[in-house]
């Protein structure tokens, strides 16, 4: 009898912990729960890493290098440490981890309701009901695309896509494409659509600019080395803002090309300010494009300056010389309006971020904006925890290599909660 059957056989008894979701967060925290001897199950709506299996986007790769793709006691062992995994490779990696960790996994088990019943949590699923003393919600920070309300005002003739539906430029109909959002995703869409011969407009709000490589290393390796990724959530000035920052403008590709707004301008992608309104079939963009670019340039220079400081202080200056990057070039008069009909805009792609999807979590842990309330992953409801949320406990929380430290903290907190 394997571990799951063993636990399932004692169906009537109570779990210590129910983990919901078998992505990198759920698997990692399960590994540490096992080490603590806590009796738990990981419930997964589909199979291991289902969200990554569901992604259709052909060219999607991780933003962090293979050598940084680490889980507790499990690292990348392939021949390309500086490469970037495709979605299918990450699925294989996570499957390997689940096997190695002997995750007590219940696959094809969709959780339909989580409630509190006295001191215990009751969990309803498509494979029956359970009780647990604690619950860890690890069902993903990117379960649903965030699409702004303005999407409802678009002309019906415009096809709207989210990153979860996007596959490749071949699926996009003729005409100009409006990509909304200047995150890693938005820039990658704009770049590959333009290179496939489409006219592209990219609406740019606040964004995070950084070069793929700096002074001989991948930027994400510097972010690890300098301790920036380890910065704690309670040391950050404005945590609510920090948790909503878009992903950095990076692309995981073999030739380490720079992807930024200048590289898009070079190939004639049209840049506009943030999409603010739709009026009579005309899209209205903010006149603040120059300023958001200025903010991003200044922040990038501060980041690179802190890497320079680290190299001077800790590496005795031993790294290739400091590099500078041109300021973001913005035309003197970026468009503030675009008529859908006149500009033949037939498609809009919302690269405007994601949010968790927790309609089954019937507990008072949501704020007035529907976001989960938590203090570093610890919910206001005793015994309820989250994993894998952006900047949950550290800057690296939403990255794969960032999950281990969070999982350890959460497991320790949970173990002492159960012990009392």
């Amino acid at each position: 009898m394997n571990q799951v059957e063993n636990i399932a056989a004692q169906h009537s008894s109570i779990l210590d912990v129910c983990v919901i979701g078998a992505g990198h967060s759920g698997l990692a925290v399960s590994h540490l729960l096992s080490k603590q001897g806590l009796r738990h199950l990981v419930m997964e709506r589909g199979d291991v890493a289902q969200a990554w299996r569901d992604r259709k986007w052909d060219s999607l790769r991780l933003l962090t290098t293979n050598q940084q793709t680490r889980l507790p006691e499990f690292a990348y062992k392939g021949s390309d440490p500086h490469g970037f995994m495709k979605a299918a490779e990450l699925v294989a990696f996570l499957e390997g981890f689940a096997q190695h960790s002997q995750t007590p996994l219940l696959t094809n088990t969709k959780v339909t309701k989580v409630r509190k019943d006295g001191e215990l949590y009751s969990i309803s699923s498509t494979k029956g009901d359970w009780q647990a003393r604690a619950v860890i919600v690890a069902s993903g920070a990117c379960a649903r695309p965030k699409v702004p309300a303005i999407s409802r005002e678009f002309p019906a003739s415009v096809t709207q896509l989210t990153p979860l539906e996007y596959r490749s430029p071949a699926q996009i109909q003729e005409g100009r494409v409006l990509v909304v959002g200047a995150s890693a995703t938005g820039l990658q869409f704009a770049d590959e659509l333009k290179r496939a011969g489409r006219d592209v407009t990219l609406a740019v709000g606040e964004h995070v600019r950084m070069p793929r490589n700096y002074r001989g290393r991948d930027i994400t390796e510097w972010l690890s080395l300098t301790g920036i990724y380890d910065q704690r959530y309670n040391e950050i000035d404005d945590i609510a803002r920090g948790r909503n920052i878009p992903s950095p403008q990076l692309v995981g590709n073999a030739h380490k090309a720079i992807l930024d707004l200048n590289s898009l301008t070079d190939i004639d992608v049209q840049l506009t300010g943030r999409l603010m309104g739709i009026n009579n079939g005309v899209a209205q963009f903010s006149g603040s494009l120059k300023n958001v670019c200025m903010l991003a340039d200044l922040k990038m220079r501060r980041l690179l300056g802190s890497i320079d400081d680290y190299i001077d202080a800790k590496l005795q200056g031993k790294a290739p010389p400091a590099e500078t990057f041109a300021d973001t070039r913005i035309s003197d008069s970026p468009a503030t309006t675009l008529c859908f009909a006149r500009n033949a805009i037939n498609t809009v792609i919302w690269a405007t971020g994601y949010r968790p999807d927790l309609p089954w979590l019937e507990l008072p842990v949501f704020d007035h904006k529907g976001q989960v309330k938590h203090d570093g992953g610890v919910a206001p409801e005793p015994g309820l925890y989250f994993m894998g949320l952006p900047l949950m406990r550290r800057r690296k929380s939403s990255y794969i290599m960032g999950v281990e430290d969070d999982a350890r903290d959460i497991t320790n907190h949970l173990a002492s909660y159960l012990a009392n």
Partner: protein
Amino acid sequence: MNNVTVDFTNGVNVEALLGAREAFTAAPEAAQFVWRAQSTWKKGTHTQTSVQKFFGLGQEQSHRQVFSYDTDHPEIFASEDIGSTPTEMVLVGLAGCLTAGIATVAEHRKIQLHSVTAAIEAPINLQGILGVDSDIRNGFSSITVKYTIDADASEDEIAALVAQSQKRSAVFDTITNPTNVHVLVNS
């Protein structure tokens, strides 16, 4: 005396603002403000507009006194030029808002300012308001604000002050982004 030495000041009470930010997070309704202005047509293109009352912190508030502004058109438009043009008043608002923001952000970042001046230019094509060419908009075709700032900070730090001020400016936002405007008559 054992007083803490004040290294710098730009005269902005940042503590009060940070306190307000905290209070408004806890009690969002207190953050609902309404700014008001009352205007009266005088003669020709001359209008007088005053501000005094506003709403905020859950109740009616008042400025220390009535502030009054005259707007008119210059003599080249055959007006009496009793005040600045209303379009120039928009620039007044922008300059006031951005500069207040710079001082506030500088205070928060402990940067001593010595002087902050701005020259604002905003081209406008009058063919728009005169209805000569319907493709030309009525408003400014662009606005350029040129700051000259002397402060105890690096060039990038000064640039960051100005950028952050724009990011948090009500007037900058109102100008750069669409706003629904409801103009009612005898209602």
